[in-house]
């Protein structure tokens, strides 16, 4: 235990460090065939998160962001690579050692209707977290703590005896947040926590998360597909495509000067509320390719408006610092795409 506290006090160490993480799911054809192919959901991803920081993770469906979030919490087993929490590799742990570490990182989920056990009361749901780690020693202390947690997320403690179906979507997300907070984590993976909520309620939950971060210094990995929401709440943003990170930068910078063509396309695809900004869209042709057979070289090249063969097809672009603080995985990073509709010119 002494060694652990020494590690925790080192200021120069990141809270979370992910190194070369891979999550590959084997594709089986029938019961007896040998595994030949795999879905490369997360393919060699590395990044870090500092204490109290919010790292946004954006990408579209199939890019692997949800799998990445779950692999970090070990709800899904990584195939290779390491996940260092305060310097300790949690991919090598199991049993009670892992269980104790779980207090440091928690997860909140997307579906407000599926993330709470319909047969448990709010008190049981939040209390379970306290019970597993034995965080309270008497019944009254437990009740008090549960009331505190409910208040912290903006719910009246009177609701503790109610069942999930009696609450609205936004309130259920608050219960889920209370459950995660109960163990006093330093890092919370937020897997699309507001995507399933009404617009007017999304803002409430986003504000709540920010307030909690300021009060408790919790770091977030904020996974979402809505770039506007991610940019609002994050300090830094990562963009994923087909299991790989294609760009990482400070939140403001990535919006202002996106370097990777996919990032540029993502930003331009967002419908703009302000009628004055007449933004022409970059329309990407075709669909996201299958993660079982990703394209050779740069995975984005078949849909990329600025791809140049043969380089983009043969050579995989490493993630490199193309400008101070901006990392991109593109041979021609920084090229501004002409904002004209080029759909239909490329065959898929």
């Amino acid at each position, binding site marked *: 235990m002494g060694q652990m506290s020494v590690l925790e006090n080192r200021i120069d160490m990141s809270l979370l460090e992910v190194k070369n993480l891979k999550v590959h799911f084997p594709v089986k054809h029938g019961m007896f065939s040998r595994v030949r192919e795999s879905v490369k959901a997360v393919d060699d991803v590395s990044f870090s998160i500092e204490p109290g920081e919010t790292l946004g993770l954006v990408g579209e469906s199939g890019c692997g962001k949800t799998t990445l979030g779950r692999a970090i919490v070990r*709800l899904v087993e990584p195939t290779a690579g390491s996940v260092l929490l305060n310097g300790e590799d949690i991919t090598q742990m199991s049993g009670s050692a892992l269980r104790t570490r*779980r207090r440091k990182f928690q997860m909140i989920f997307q579906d407000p209707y599926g993330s709470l056990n319909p047969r448990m009361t709010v008190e049981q749901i939040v209390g379970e977290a306290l019970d597993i780690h034995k965080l309270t020693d008497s019944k009254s202390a437990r009740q008090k703590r549960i009331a505190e947690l409910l208040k912290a997320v903006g719910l009246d403690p009177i609701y503790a005896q109610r069942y999930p179906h009696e609450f609205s979507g936004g309130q259920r997300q608050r219960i889920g947040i209370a459950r995660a907070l109960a163990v006093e984590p330093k890092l919370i993976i937020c897997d699309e926590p507001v995507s399933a909520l009404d617009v007017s309620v999304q803002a409430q939950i986003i504000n709540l998360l920010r307030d909690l971060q300021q009060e408790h210094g919790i770091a977030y990995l904020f996974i979402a597909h809505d770039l506007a929401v991610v940019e609002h709440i994050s300090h830094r943003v990562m963009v994923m495509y087909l299991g790989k990170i294609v760009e990482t930068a400070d939140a403001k910078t990535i919006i202002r000067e996106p370097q990777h063509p996919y990032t540029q396309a993502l930003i331009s695809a967002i419908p703009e509320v302000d009628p004055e900004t007449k933004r022409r869209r970059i329309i990407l042709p075709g669909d996201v390719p299958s993660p079982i057979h990703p394209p050779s070289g740069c995975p984005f090249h078949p849909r990329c408006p600025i791809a140049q063969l043969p380089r983009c097809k043969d050579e995989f672009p490493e993630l490199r610092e193309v400008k101070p603080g901006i990392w991109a995985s593109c041979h021609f990073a920084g090229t501004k795409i002409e904002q004209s509709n080029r759909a239909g010119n490329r065959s898929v």
Partner: protein
Amino acid sequence: MIGGAILIVLYLVALFAGFVAPYSYDHLDTNYSFHQPILPRLQNFQLVVPRYEQGAAVFTYHAVAGDSKPVHFFVRGAKYKLFGMVPTVIHLFGTGDDRYPIYLLGTDQFGRDVFSRLLYGSQISLSIGVIGILLSFTFGMMIGGISGYFSGGTDTVIMRLCELIMSIPALYLIISLRATFPPGMSSAQVYAMIVIILSFIGWASMARVIRGMTLSLREQQFVLAARALGQSHLKIIVRHILPNTFSYVIVAATLSVPYYILGEVVLSFLGVGIQEPSASWGNMLTAAQNTEYLRNFPWLLAPGAAIFVTVLAFNFLGDGLRDAADTKSS
């Protein structure tokens, strides 16, 4: 709800069998063998029962006019133990006089009151059903939950075992299992053994269904949340997954009880279940196999009617529960 009401009455009566039955299950009087049902009738606003005398032919009886005794309630009768524990002599109804018997459903070949034996038999038949499903469903749910949750090798082995058990024709399995037990066992042991055999057959199909439900429940986000909190696997299965299968389980249980009751009936009917002189609906029907008897003494079929009513009641209850569960879950 009708089903539920009928069942509540049946089980209450079974519980108080000793009290409701005017006679013990082994009380016999060969003077009255194969007596037709003796029903009280109304005379001067009083319920009375006439005395019967043997007639000319064997097993025929007629009432003696003018000679009757009133029926009393909470009357003193033979000794018995209420709930098997409390010794008492009070019965629900009777005449208090052995010369004026009340055989509501007649007697069998030994002069034993069919009604009383029906009640004592109900204790066995009804309880075997309930205990049977409790055992097999508890076991089946746990096995199914474990199988579905852990998947992989464990799952394969367990499921193949279930399939093996389910592929053997139940009746033959029951009989052969019964044959492996030594004869001359006490009736309590026989009872326990029947329950165990029936449960052994029944858990497999429940396990399979629960395993299927577990496979999908396992991916629900609230289960993922519990895993992320570090909850142990066993607790996740018991606290999160299995409670969400209850709506199916309750309905399946209610619809399965009749099979357990019938299982015992079949065993006893074939002579390998509850033994004489203990009464069970099954062994009471054995005596009714003889068509001569059936033609002349149709009241011997009373246990069959009782089984019919019970099974029907369980089916109604199960249907009703299924409908209720559906609306709640939507």
